[in-house]
Structures are given as structure tokens and as C-alpha cells.
């Protein structure tokens, strides 16, 4: 599979300063790519530059062989890029059904909306089961599932998931990661940002480590899980094996930076 999304030398930030300092990243089609790294590394900022919430200062974002760097959020949505932000993004005073319908806000074809609704209901039974419930009354895990279900209304090519497991109990976390697996089985491409690095890499075909605004290391999800240094720095334990199968694309953090990495920035 070729790259569906590629970031080339992306520099971006906010008023407080630069967050991304030249990010290079490729996301292959029909795969889960998981982005991990310490707090403040710029993981969520990467997603914002892809969805168009944040315009890069320099560098390019290419999607489906098209340079989309200067496109608006709306135009990127039309091309099939949907972003599920870290904060709960459902509309709490609206019903689950209305929330899901909002996913097709830009779709004008009523037949397509009906057909996608049928698919979503089949894939996510909670949508039908709780259709009249206010979204705000759902548990955190249920809300996250409905958020993902809502993205499917757009029949997306690329789903950007920002910390989907944050604040969830273990059962809900499992449900969310199972859902992410189902998405790739359905041919979707997912760029996942996950603080829970072990679970994120386990579900991903490809992983990347972001630190200080640049991608420091890339590899398959399993190879990064097996990498002892990655385990020590980001997974909170020594890896079960000692093989380093990842392909480094940059310089690994020195041992001196370990404590700095553990401090929230």
C-alpha cells in the first residue's frame, strides 16, 4: 500500500511558539499509524495540521497525491479527512441520532446518507440502541464509540483519532481499540495519537515517536513495542525481547533526556 498521507518538513505552532519543528511522516492506506511521545511533543498539533485546524508555517501536507497544505478544514473534510479531537466532541444536549447525522453535515445526497446510516447502525449497534438518548448522558466509552460512528457518516478515507482512550475505564478502552481494529478491517486509514503507548502500538501496523517537534523514530507497531529503549522511555518498562527491528529515521534521545521526557512540558 502506498502513502495516503505525507507530511514533509512541517513547521507549525501557536502564539506561544513553535511546536512542530520539521515533521516528516508517512501514513499508509488501510493501516493504523500510531504517533506516541511525551506530553508537549506536538502529537495533537500534527493532527490539527492534517485536519486544517492549524495552518503550518512551512512544509507541506499531501493527501491522496494532492498538496492540501492551504486547504480549509471544510475542503479537507470533503476529501475524506475527519478529525476526532481529544476532548469529548459530541454535542451533549443533542440525541445520539442527531449527533450521528451531524457527521453527514456536508453530504447533500439523501440516499447516500440513508445508506451510510444503515452501515453505521450495523457496525455500531449503540447508535440504534441509544438513538434518543442525549449524548451527554452516555458513558465516556460510549461517547467515544459514537464519535467514531459519527465519522463513518462521511465515508472517510483518513480518520484522525486524538487520544481516544483518555479517561476511559479498562473495559471501554478495550472497546475503543477493538473498534479501531474494525476500522482498518473495513479499509479505513487511521492516524492515531495515543498516550497509552503500549495499547496504541499494539493496534498499529506502523508507529512513530515524536519528540521535541520532530519524528525521532519510526517502525512497525510490534517492532517499536519490542524495542528496549522505546520500552524504557515510553512504555514504562523494559521490553520482553532485546531485538531492535525499528528503522531509525533520526537520533534517539540520549539517556540524559530521559528525565526531561518524563516531565510534562
Amino acid at each position: 500500500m502506498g502513502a495516503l498521507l505525507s507530511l514533509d518538513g512541517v513547521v507549525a505552532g501557536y502564539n506561544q511558539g513553535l511546536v512542530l519543528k520539521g515533521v516528516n511522516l508517512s501514513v499508509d492506506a488501510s493501516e493504523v499509524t500510531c504517533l506516541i511521545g511525551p506530553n508537549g511533543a506536538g502529537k495533537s498539533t500534527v493532527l490539527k495540521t492534517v485536519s486544517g485546524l492549524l495552518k503550518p508555517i512551512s512544509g507541506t501536507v499531501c493527501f491522496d497525491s494532492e498538496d492540501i497544505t492551504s486547504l480549509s478544514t471544510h475542503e479537507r473534510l470533503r476529501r475524506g479527512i475527519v478529525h476526532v479531537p481529544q476532548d469529548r466532541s459530541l454535542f451533549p444536549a443533542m440525541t445520539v441520532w442527531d449527533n450521528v447525522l451531524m457527521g453527514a453535515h456536508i453530504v447533500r445526497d439523501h440516499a447516500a446518507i440513508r445508506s451510510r446510516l444503515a452501515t453505521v447502525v450495523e457496525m455500531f449497534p449503540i447508535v440504534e440502541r441509544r438513538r434518543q438518548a442525549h449524548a451527554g448522558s452516555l458513558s465516556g466509552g460510549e461517547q467515544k464509540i459514537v464519535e467514531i460512528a459519527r465519522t463513518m457518516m462521511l465515508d472517510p478515507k483518513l480518520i484522525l483519532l486524538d487520544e481516544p482512550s483518555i479517561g476511559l475505564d479498562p473495559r471501554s478502552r478495550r472497546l475503543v481499540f477493538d473498534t479501531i481494529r474494525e476500522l482498518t478491517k473495513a479499509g479505513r486509514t487511521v492516524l492515531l495519537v495515543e498516550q497509552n503507548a503500549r495499547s496504541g502500538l499494539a493496534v498499529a501496523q506502523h508507529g512513530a515517536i515524536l519528540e521535541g517537534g520532530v519524528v525521532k523514530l519510526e517502525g512497525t507497531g510490534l517492532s517499536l513495542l519490542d524495542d528496549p529503549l522505546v520500552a524504557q522511555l515510553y512504555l514504562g518498562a523494559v521490553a520482553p525481547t532485546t531485538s531492535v527491528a525499528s528503522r531509525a529515521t533520526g537520533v534517539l534521545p540520549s539517556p540524559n533526556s530521559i528525565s526531561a521526557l518524563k516531565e510534562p512540558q
Partner: protein
Amino acid sequence: MHLLVQSIIVGVLTGGVYALMATGQTLIFGVMRVINVAQGAMVILAAYLSSSLFSSFGIDPFLSILITAPILFVLGFTIHATFLRRLRPEQNELSLLIMFAVALGIEGVLGLAYSTTYRSIQTGYVNRSFTVAGYHVALVRLLAFGLSAVILVGLFLLLNRSRFGRSVRATVQNPTSARLLGVEPTRVAAIGFGLGAATAAAAGAVYGLVYPFNGGSHYDLISRLLSIVMLGGLGSLGGSVIAALVMGVAESVVAANVSPIWSSFTFFAVLLAVLVFRPRGLFGVAQRGAL
């Protein structure tokens, strides 16, 4: 007892008119978190427009709404595009001053165009009434009540059953998330503001039929509207309707059974009494955007 029931009937019908006026205020607050202190001035502007259309072209005030509503919609849309859209979220308090300036501007223009003499819209049916079970019902107030009910139901359906309504509610509840789904919050806010202003057109025609007015009438009107909106709970459409009926009845009952002198004060006494026990008003929503 007869007097009490009669005053309640008058109060309910008057409350319907208040509800129509307060709904626009609530809609604008719900969509934009802007307290539109110019809503009263927009109602009076619409009353003058209906009055002119009636006196110059013989167009019935109720029919004139078809002409004045688009005019007020454009006015609201323009006010949003010109002044409010430029405000950053942290500058939202400035909107109060901006809308006060708009109110004064409208008052000034009306003073220049129409002078400050009180006027009212005198149609052939304005003084007609009929009797039901011994109680008098003023035709114009009943028509006004019916119109309010139709517009309120229409607004409810628009907000709850249409694609646009969904995007309005979504924007109110989570603007960033709405944007990520393709909603353009600025456009939604502008249309919401325009719609709120357009309800003033209907309210103005009714107001002109029921009450005498001049350019300065908006001061009294806006104090009542704000009281109703506060009593109902800021941002709650249903709450503002209930509050309007409560206020209308309280005012009418006190005027008929105690003294008309105390009727205006009743408005604020009810408001203060309720806010002591329910600081968010009768139906105030803790959750942003439950229009």
C-alpha cells in the same frame, strides 16, 4: 372571581406577545452568547415599518410581516457581519456596548424619520372583541397570540427538525467540533442573528396593534424582555415562553386586582423572587446550548 379570570385571560394573551418578542432575544443569546439589548429597538423599528406600510399602502400589519421580516433579517445579518463577527471570544462583553449603540442608533433614526410623537396602528378590527362564557376576548390580542404560537412552533421545528437547526445547536454546544464536521460557525451565527432579528418583525407588527409607541418605547420594552429571558433561563426557548406567560399573567392580575401602578413593578418582583431560589431562572440550562 370573574375579574381574576378575565385578567388571567388578558395576561395569557399578552404573554403570548411577550413570548414572541423574547424568543428572538433567546435565540440570539443561545447562538452567540450575545445579550441583544437592541431587540426592543428592532421591535419598535418593525412597528414603525408596519405602521408605514399600513398607512401608505393599506397593507394589513399581519401581512406586512412578510415584508418586514426579510428587512429585519438583513439588518440582523448586517449587524453581525459588520460588528459582532470581528469580536474575539474574550471580547464578548463588548457586544453589549455594540448592541446598545445599535439601539440608540435605531432610536435616533426613528426620531428623525417619524418624530417622537406616539402613534399606534389603527386597523378596522383593532378594537373588536367578542365574549366567550361571559369573558371578553380582544380580537387583536387573540390574533397576536395565534401568530406567536405559529411562529414559535415554526422556530421549534426549524431548530429541532432541520439540517440548519442541527448545525445551530451543534455550533452552540461545541463550535470547534461543529467546524470539524463542516459547519461554518460564523455563517450559522450570522443567520441565527438574522432570524432573531426577523422575529422582531412579527413582534413589532403585533406591538404596534396593541400598544401606542414612539422611538423611545424600546427602553421599557427591553427591560421587560430581559426580565423574561432571565426568568425563563438564559438560552432556553421553552423557558422564555413559559416566563413570558407568567409575566403577562402576573402583570395583568396585579393591574386588574391591585392597581395598574404596581403592574410594571410586578415584572421585576417576580423576577427577583424566582432568582433568589433559582439563580439560573426557571429553565436555565447548566449545559451550553440546550436550546
